[in-house]
């Protein structure tokens, strides 16, 4: 693993990638630019939760980075062993519910332009958002009260429903926000 990381990540690898990425983004249309930045941030966030257990198995400096990664995500998730997925025998940085929320969120962002288009201003009904949030809440609360035990499947379904839906509200908002900032700066 250590050897593979050294081959694929030479010292200037990050810098070259960032430079090429910035060049690519600058050429895009404004709405697409905003979307790509939104997608990139989410991609890095989601990738990091799955990379942390890989770093643990790489050992050395990577393991130290992973330790801080676990600590970083600790304030967003309980990270309980019996409620988490494992990669290479190491725990994913967040629990199974959070992992599916983030993964579905990323999937939603990737599919959004194909399903709605970036110039879309229409939002799904707020009631759908509230319904999905309620399902997630009930799945957790009923389990905590000992009324209905939740499972990996129930956590994955309720998590992915809300995760997939959120970009349909947040992308139009982010595009509008970026346009407002752009207008303000260009005045």
């Amino acid at each position: 693993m250590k050897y593979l990381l050294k081959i694929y990540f030479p010292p200037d690898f990050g810098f070259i990638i960032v430079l090429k990425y910035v060049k690519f983004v600058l050429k895009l249309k404004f709405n697409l630019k905003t979307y790509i930045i939104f997608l990139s941030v989410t991609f890095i966030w989601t990738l990091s939760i799955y990379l942390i257990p890989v770093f643990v198995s790489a050992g050395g400096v990577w393991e130290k980075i992973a330790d801080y990664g676990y600590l970083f995500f600790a304030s967003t998730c309980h990270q309980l062993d019996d409620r988490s997925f494992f990669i290479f025998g190491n725990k994913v940085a967040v629990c199974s519910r959070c992992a599916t929320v983030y993964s579905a969120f990323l999937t939603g962002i990737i599919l959004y332009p194909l399903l709605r288009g970036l110039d879309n201003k229409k939002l799904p009904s707020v009631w759908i958002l509230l319904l999905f949030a309620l399902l997630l809440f009930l799945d957790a609360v009923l389990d905590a009260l000992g009324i209905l035990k939740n499972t990996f499947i129930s956590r994955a379904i309720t998590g992915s429903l809300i995760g997939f839906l959120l970009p349909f509200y947040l992308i139009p908002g982010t595009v509008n926000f970026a346009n407002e900032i752009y207008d303000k700066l260009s005045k």
Partner: protein
Amino acid sequence: MEKNVSINRLLPVIWGFLVMTLISVTPLINFINWFFCAGIILGGVAGVFSFNKQLTALNLSLSFKDAVLIGILSGVLSSIAVSGFNVLTLMYSQANPISESLKMLGDYGKNLPPEVNKQIDNLSREFDKYGYSPTLAIFTFISNMLIYPLFGAVGALLAATIINNKKKINQTNV
């Protein structure tokens, strides 16, 4: 949005800050934050709803940049308060969470690699010496400074999108 002196921009930030902080520091209630940082998102939503209430009374529209700013500022203030509160709680409780966690893990601690054990020992010694771990406190503060404003902004953006969409629908119906 038009400039108006009667708009209080601090009040929504305080509302957002209060909701985020109270949810994060109250035992049992803080478990809301285990769901995609829902407590922090709710703080951003509360701040924007409070701001929109003022704007509606003055017949003004809500801008996305104001909403996001409310979410970020509430998040920054809350991250400082929550990090400070955590350090104070640890100092007054006189507990060493590191050694307690290792005790709870039982044999698991013995299986940790020597490097990790060394780091854990260092943190544990800091707890014994100062009543809290400066290293852990600094790192938690930095991560809170990233997470709180980020999720606060997400909540604020979500609220602003829904509010503006609702207003647009109402206008087209009229």
